[in-house]
C-alpha cells in the first residue's frame, strides 16, 4: 500500500479532500506570478536592449508623463494586480474556513505532541506513537495539545497543518481520499530532534481500519479511561449525575453555554474543561461556590484528554438534558483556555440559563 516516493516530483501526493483545491489555487497563483515575472523580465530586458546608450547620444528627453497617460498607467498597474490578488485572498480564505470547521460526523482522534514524538489516542482506546491510522473516505478530526513546546502537525499529502500548543487545544481535520502511507512532519521548530519528530499516516480501507481498531489495546476506550480517572481523582464526590447543591451537573454539559458568576458566559469546550480542572477559580459557574480544588500537577495532558472525552461522553449536547441550553450563535459565546476570556461587554443573561437550571439545588 505504500507508494514508493519518486525522487523527482513537483507535487506531493494528493490524498485528502483539500489537496485538489489547494493545488488548484497554487496553480492559479503560479500562472499569475509567472505572467508578472515574465512581463517584468521582458520589459527590462527589452528596454535595456532597445534603448541602450550609443556613443555621442545626448541626454534623452524627459518623458512627459501626462502625455503618455502616466496616471492611467499607475492606476492600471495598481488595480489589476490588486484585483487578481484579491481572488487569491478569497479563494485562500474559503479554503481556510473549510479547513477550520470539522464536520459534525468526524471521528475524534487526540494528538499530544511531546519532544520529539507524536502520541495519538483513538476514542476506542487504541494508542499509537508517530503513526496514525485513519479510514479512507471518513472525516477525521484531530484535537491536539502539547506537553512542552509548540509543535505542528503537518501532513503534506493532506495539504494541511496546525500548530500544537502547550496549555491549549487546536483542531485540524481532513478526509483522506487515497489509501496509502504519508509523511507526518513536525513543522514548528521544537529543538534538538525537530527533524526527527516525524511519522506516518496510514490511510486504510474501511475494512482494514475496522480490523486495525479491533486489535487495538485492551485498555478500553478513552471515555472509560476518563471515567476511572474521574472516580480516582474524586471528581465524582462532588459532580454527581443530575447535579446536587455542591457542584454543577456535568451530564450533557459539553458544548453548552455556561453562565458565569460575573455575568459573562463561556462555551463549555475542551479548553474550558481543562481550565476548570487546572484553574477552577478562573471562572466560577453562576450559583456555585469556589470550592473546587485545583488538580494542577495531578493530571497528565493525556489524562486530561481522557477526562475531556469522558465528560463529552456524558451526554449529547444536542440531546434533551434539562437545564442546558445550546448557544444560539457561535459568536454569542465566550471561549476559554489561556487567553480566552469573557469579552468586555456584558452579555445579556440567557433566558434559559444554568442558573435557572440550578434552581433545584439547595443553598
Amino acid at each position: 500500500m505504500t507508494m514508493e516516493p519518486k525522487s523527482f516530483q513537483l507535487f506531493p501526493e494528493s490524498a485528502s479532500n483539500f489537496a485538489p483545491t489547494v493545488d488548484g489555487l497554487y496553480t492559479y497563483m503560479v500562472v499569475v506570478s509567472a505572467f508578472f515575472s515574465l512581463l517584468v523580465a521582458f520589459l527590462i530586458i527589452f528596454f535595456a536592449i532597445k534603448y541602450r546608450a550609443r556613443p555621442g547620444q545626448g541626454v534623452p528627453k524627459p518623458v512627459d508623463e501626462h502625455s503618455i497617460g502616466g496616471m492611467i498607467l499607475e492606476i492600471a498597474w495598481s488595480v489589476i494586480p490588486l484585483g487578481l490578488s484579491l481572488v487569491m485572498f478569497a479563494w485562500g480564505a474559503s479554503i481556510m474556513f473549510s479547513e477550520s470547521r470539522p464536520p459534525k460526523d468526524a471521528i475524534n482522534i487526540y494528538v499530544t505532541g511531546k519532544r520529539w514524538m507524536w502520541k495519538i489516542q483513538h476514542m476506542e482506546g487504541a494508542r499509537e506513537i508517530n503513526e496514525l491510522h485513519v479510514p479512507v473516505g471518513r472525516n477525521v478530526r484531530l484535537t491536539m495539545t502539547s506537553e512542552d513546546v509548540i509543535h505542528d502537525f503537518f501532513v503534506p499529502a493532506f495539504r494541511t497543518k496546525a500548530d500544537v500548543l502547550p496549555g491549549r487545544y487546536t483542531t485540524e481535520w481532513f478526509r483522506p481520499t487515497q489509501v496509502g502511507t504519508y509523511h507526518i512532519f513536525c513543522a514548528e521548530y521544537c529543538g534538538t530532534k525537530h527533524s526527527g519528530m516525524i511519522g506516518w499516516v496510514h490511510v486504510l480501507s474501511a475494512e482494514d481500519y475496522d480490523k486495525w481498531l479491533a486489535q487495538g489495546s485492551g485498555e478500553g476506550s478513552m471515555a472509560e479511561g476518563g471515567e476511572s480517572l474521574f472516580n480516582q481523582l474524586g471528581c465524582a464526590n462532588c459532580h454527581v449525575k443530575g447535579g446536587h447543591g455542591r457542584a454543577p451537573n456535568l451530564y450533557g454539559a459539553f458544548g453548552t453555554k455556561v453562565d458565569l458568576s460575573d455575568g459573562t458566559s463561556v462555551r463549555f469546550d475542551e479548553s474550558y474543561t481543562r481550565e476548570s480542572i487546572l484553574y477552577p477559580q478562573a471562572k466560577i459557574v453562576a450559583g456555585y461556590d469556589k470550592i473546587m480544588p485545583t488538580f494542577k500537577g495531578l493530571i497528565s495532558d493525556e489524562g486530561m484528554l481522557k477526562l475531556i472525552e469522558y465528560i463529552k461522553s456524558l451526554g449529547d449536547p444536542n440531546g434533551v438534558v434539562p437545564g442546558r441550553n445550546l448557544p444560539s450563535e457561535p459568536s454569542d459565546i465566550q471561549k476559554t483556555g489561556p487567553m480566552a476570556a469573557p469579552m468586555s461587554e456584558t452579555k445579556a443573561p440567557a433566558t434559559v440559563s444554568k442558573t435557572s437550571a440550578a434552581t433545584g439545588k439547595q443553598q
Partner: protein
Amino acid sequence: MITAPAPVKETKNYLNAQTGLKSWLLTGDHKRIAVMYLIVVTAFFALGGVFASLIRLELATPAGDLMESNQYNKVFTMHGVLMVFFFLIPSIPATLGNFLIPLMIGAKDLAFPKINLLSWYIYMLGGVFTLYVLLTGGVDTGWTFYTPFSTSYSNGYVVAAGLGIFINGFSAILTGLNFIVTIHRMRAPGLTWFRLPLFVWAHYATSAIMILGTPVVAVTLFLLVLERGLHIGFFDPAYGGDPVLFQHLFWFYSHPAVYIMILPSMGVISEVISTFSSKKPFGYTFIAFSSVAIAVFGFLVWGHHLFVAGQSIYAGLVFSILSYVVAIPSAIKVFNWAATMYKGRVRLETPMLYALGFIGLFTVGGLTGIFLSSLGMDVHLTDTYFVVAHFHYVMVGGALLGYLAGLHFWWPKIFGRMYSQVWSKVSAALVFVGFNLTFFPQFLLGYMGMPRRYHVYPPEFQVFNVLSSAGASVLALGLILPAIYLTWSLKHGAIASANPWGATGLEWQTSSPPISENFEVTPVVTTEAYDYSTVPQEVVHVG
C-alpha cells in the same frame, strides 16, 4: 569617467583629513562612521555567510552526517540572527544612508553626530554579546525565539543572545531618529520634499519603521530574558501565559522589519535605474509615496506569520487581505522602474546589472510572498522551504542585491577609486546564476512539503537539495569576488572623478571622496530632482 592616472597627491578629503585610529574611533563625521559600519557589517555578513555555507553543506545529503542536530540548530539560528539583525537591517541605512543622506540634502552632517557615533558603539556592544554567544556555544532557538522553547527548553545562551539583539536594537533606533530629524530639519535651501532623491524618501520611511517597531521587539526580548533568567513568567503556559502573544509582539516588529530591509534597497534601485537610464524616475511621486505607504501599511499585516499558530481565523482574515493591500505599493515601484527605462539611455554598468537583477528577483520573491498571505495556501506552505525560498528571494535577491548595487554605485564617491569593470560584471553574473540555482529549487521543495529547520530529511528531497547546495557555492564565489576586487581598488583603482556615472544629486557635486564638511559652500537647490540636462556630457561613460 576615469580621469587620467592621477597625480598621486590626493586632495584633501574626509579620509585623510585626520589620521590615526583615534581620529576614527572618536569621529563625529557621518562619512567616517559610515565607513566604520561598512567594515563591521561586512564582517558580520561574512560570518553569516560561513554559517550559510555550513547549512548547505549539511543539507547536501539527507542524513545528518556533518554535524549533530544541536549544532545544526545553532548554525541556522546564528545564520538568521547575524544576517537579519547584524547585517541586513543596518546594511544600507547605516552605511550608505549614513554616508549619503547629509550629502544628498546638502547638509554638513546628520543632526546629531555624537548620537550617530554612539549608535555605532551600541551596535558593536550588541555584536560583542552575540560573538560571546557564538564562542561559548551558540543559541538554538531560531531567529524567531519562540516561547516557551526559548524560555524553558533551549540549551543555548538565550539570555546573552537576547540581550545582544536588545542592545543592537537601540542602535537602529538612534539611526532612525537621526535620519528623521536630519531630513526634516537639515535640508539645503530650496530642497523641498518633492525635490528629494527617492533614496531619501525611502530612508525616511525606513526610519519611521525603525522608530515605531524596534522598541517593541526590544521590550519583547527583554521580557524573554527576564522570563528565562529570572523565571518571571510573561508567556509561560504554566501560569496561563500565551505563547501566541509573544508571537504577536515579535512580528509586530519583525514584519515591518522586512520593510526596513527592503525599502533602503528600493531607494538605491530608484537612484541606479534613473542614473543609468539618464531619466527622471517615472512616477516620482508614486514611488515616493509608495515608500511611505509601505511603512504605514506594513504595520497592519504582522499576523500573516501566525495563520496556523492558534490565532483566531477572523484575525487571520484581516491580516491576509491587508497583506495584499501592502503588496500594491511594491508593485507600483516595480512597474515604475521598468517604465523609467523606457526611451532612456540605458548603460549596463555594474550597478545597473545588480539593479536589474534586483527587479527580477524581488518580483519573484514578492509574488511568492503573496502565495503565503493567502490563508489556505499558507496552511500548506508555512514552515516549509517555500518560506525559506520566499525570504531569500526578497532578502538576498532583493535587499542584498540592492545593497551591492548601491555599494558599486557609490564606491567611487566613498573611496574615490574605481574598481575593475570586468570582475564586477563577472561577479554580478555569478551572483545572479548562483542565487537562482540555490533558492529556486527550494520553492519546489517547499511545495513538496519539506519543513524548514530540518537537520535530516527524507531521501526523496535530496535532488533539489543537492542543486541548492551546488548553487550556494556559485553564489559564494560571486560574493567573495567583490570582497577581493573592491579591497584591491582601494589602493590600485583608478582615481574617480566627482561624478563618474553622470548622475544628478547633490552628492555628485562635491569631490570624490568628499571633504569633511561635505561641501565648500552650502548648495542652494533651484531645480527639480533628476534633471539630467544639467549633467555635463563629457563625463558620461558609455560602455
